[in-house]
């Protein structure tokens, strides 16, 4: 097993390197730089700034210098915020994004597996159609539509919840997190309940479930002790793709609800050519997704005795 983990990490390193390289050179190919202000600055000042950040050197030297910094866990200074490093910006925004993303995936797995199981147990009955209709809606309606609509209904019309923004004075209070978390979770709930329904239907048809029933186990015991354990496996392997979807979703959610998370900073940084911040966020998210995929595979293997590490 350790050999397997080591091999996966060995594959991850060149993958990350490719991502870093592509992102680095793509960003530098952009017309315009981080120091193009509305009001042009004196040429001498400009040269000094370029020299300070090492932008006067040839591109390949900048690239190796960046990699050398990375090896020492140094993401460099932000080019736009003079007094902040990239690590500062990430450590400010990441807790917000991680809280919302983490709560969303938990909510999605919990609600989705309940809905999916219900639909499977009542296959082709009203409950099933209701859940699958809901799932169709969840997959079809993007977060940037459901977010504003939820904010409109619960925030403006009903006045129950704040419509957006995390007030820095109060931080992440539960009522400010409700709408963003639900909005981000909705499509995932839909996908999880579809997966759960399909796998539960298959499990309920299998022989060992019939055996469990035949030996006189009660309905709930069959469901929780035998069926659920097996049915939950496909959900575990969905965690990898789900994390990528959540990262994408969080960019929109943070925009809709004006949350000071990392996704919003990424879009802003990309528009302002803040190279180092863009690179930092890309590296962070790529490593996170690679890590979560590995974790999902390990959990899957731990839960499923039929899987062995080759």
């Amino acid at each position, binding site marked *: 097993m350790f050999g397997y983990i080591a091999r996966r990490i060995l594959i991850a390193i060149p993958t990350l390197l490719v991502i870093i390289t592509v992102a680095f050179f793509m*960003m530098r190919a*952009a017309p315009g730089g981080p120091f193009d202000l509305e009001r042009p600055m004196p040429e001498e000042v400009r040269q000094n700034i370029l020299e300070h950040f090492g932008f006067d050197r040839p591109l390949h030297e900048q690239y190796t210098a960046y990699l050398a910094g990375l090896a020492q866990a140094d993401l460099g200074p932000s080019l736009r915020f003079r007094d902040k490093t990239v690590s500062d910006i990430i450590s400010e925004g990441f807790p917000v994004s991680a809280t919302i993303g983490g709560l969303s995936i938990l909510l999605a797995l919990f609600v989705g597996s309940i809905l999916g199981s219900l639909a499977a147990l009542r296959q082709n009955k009203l409950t099933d159609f209701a859940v699958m209709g809901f799932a169709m809606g969840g997959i*079809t*309606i*993007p977060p940037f539509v459901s977010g504003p609509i939820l904010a*409109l209904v619960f925030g403006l019309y009903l006045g129950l919840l704040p419509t957006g923004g995390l007030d820095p004075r109060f931080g992440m209070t539960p009522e400010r997190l409700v709408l963003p978390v639900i909005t981000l979770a909705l499509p995932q709930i839909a996908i999880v309940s579809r997966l759960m329904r399909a796998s539960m239907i298959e499990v309920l048809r299998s022989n060992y479930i019939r055996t469990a029933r035949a030996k006189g186990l009660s309905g709930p015991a069959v469901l929780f002790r035998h069926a659920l354990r097996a049915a939950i496996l496909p959900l575990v392997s969905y965690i990898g793709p789900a994390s990528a979807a959540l990262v994408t979703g969080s960019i929109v959610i943070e925009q809709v609800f004006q949350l000071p998370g990392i996704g919003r900073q990424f*879009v802003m940084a990309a528009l302002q050519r803040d190279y180092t911040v863009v690179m930092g966020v890309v590296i962070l998210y790529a490593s996170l997704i690679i890590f979560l995929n590995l974790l999902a595979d390990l959990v899957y293997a731990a839960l499923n005795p039929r899987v062995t590490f080759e």
Partner: protein
Amino acid sequence: MNTTIGSEDNAAAIETAAIEGRSLWDDAIARLLRNKAAVASMIILGLLVLIAIVGPYIWPHSHETIYRERVWIAPTLEHLHIFGTDAQGRDLFARTLIGLRVSLMVGVVASMVSLAIGVFWGATAGFIGGRVDQVMMRIVDVLYSLPFIFFVIILMVVFGRNIILIFVAIGAVEWLTMARIVRGQTIAIKNMEFVEAAEAAGVSRLDTIRRHIIPNVLGPVIVYVTLTIPVVILAESFLSFLGLGVQEPLTSLGRLIAYGAQDMQIATWTLIAPAATMMLTLFCFNFIGDGVRDAIDPKDR
């Protein structure tokens, strides 16, 4: 099972099949037409496509005209602002039509790009097999788990917001599943007798892929393309929502939704009109996609 379709050479074969009896495709079409949700969606989508194409020419307002004295007018029959006007006094119905047109266009074109890349990649990997296959599919595996939308965002920023680039960038992101499906089919098909026959007759590898493999992979590919279109439309609206999509005065549904979300406290209709149009379109595509999938079930093949 071996009914080939798609190249002119086989047109005759299909015709004789139609005379002899029901082909696989006739059955699939009959199944699709029995699916009420899919048929209703096709009719609605047909109407949407029609008004997206014809609408802007016959509607009295242009999406660019600014009526300074008519800012944020709620939907009304007066002056024919049936969806109201936006923050600058532009007719929202005209803008929704243009937005729908752009979204539909992106959906179709970018799906074709993903189709082309995916079919080429998957068919090559599956047909050649061995080492090449392993390396090519390993690349797909690695790409699969990456937040590709980040690269699209960087691309849009770097090369400017150009509609052609949007087609290519989104298509280039969505081809991975297509490549996997095509590879699987190709491996299943390449050991069949007619491929052997082509080889024996001295057909070159490239021609074998083009003439014999690709036409037979068509079923699952059609299913996946219909399901890709809504995904692509969503991706474009996502970019537009962030302000990285098409440029003014051209607009797309995502951009309109972004404006609507900004102004919803003052003018709810600026959000509802484009959001409802988008949801209707996506529902139609998804129902058609599900219908087509049930009609040509890849599991049966």
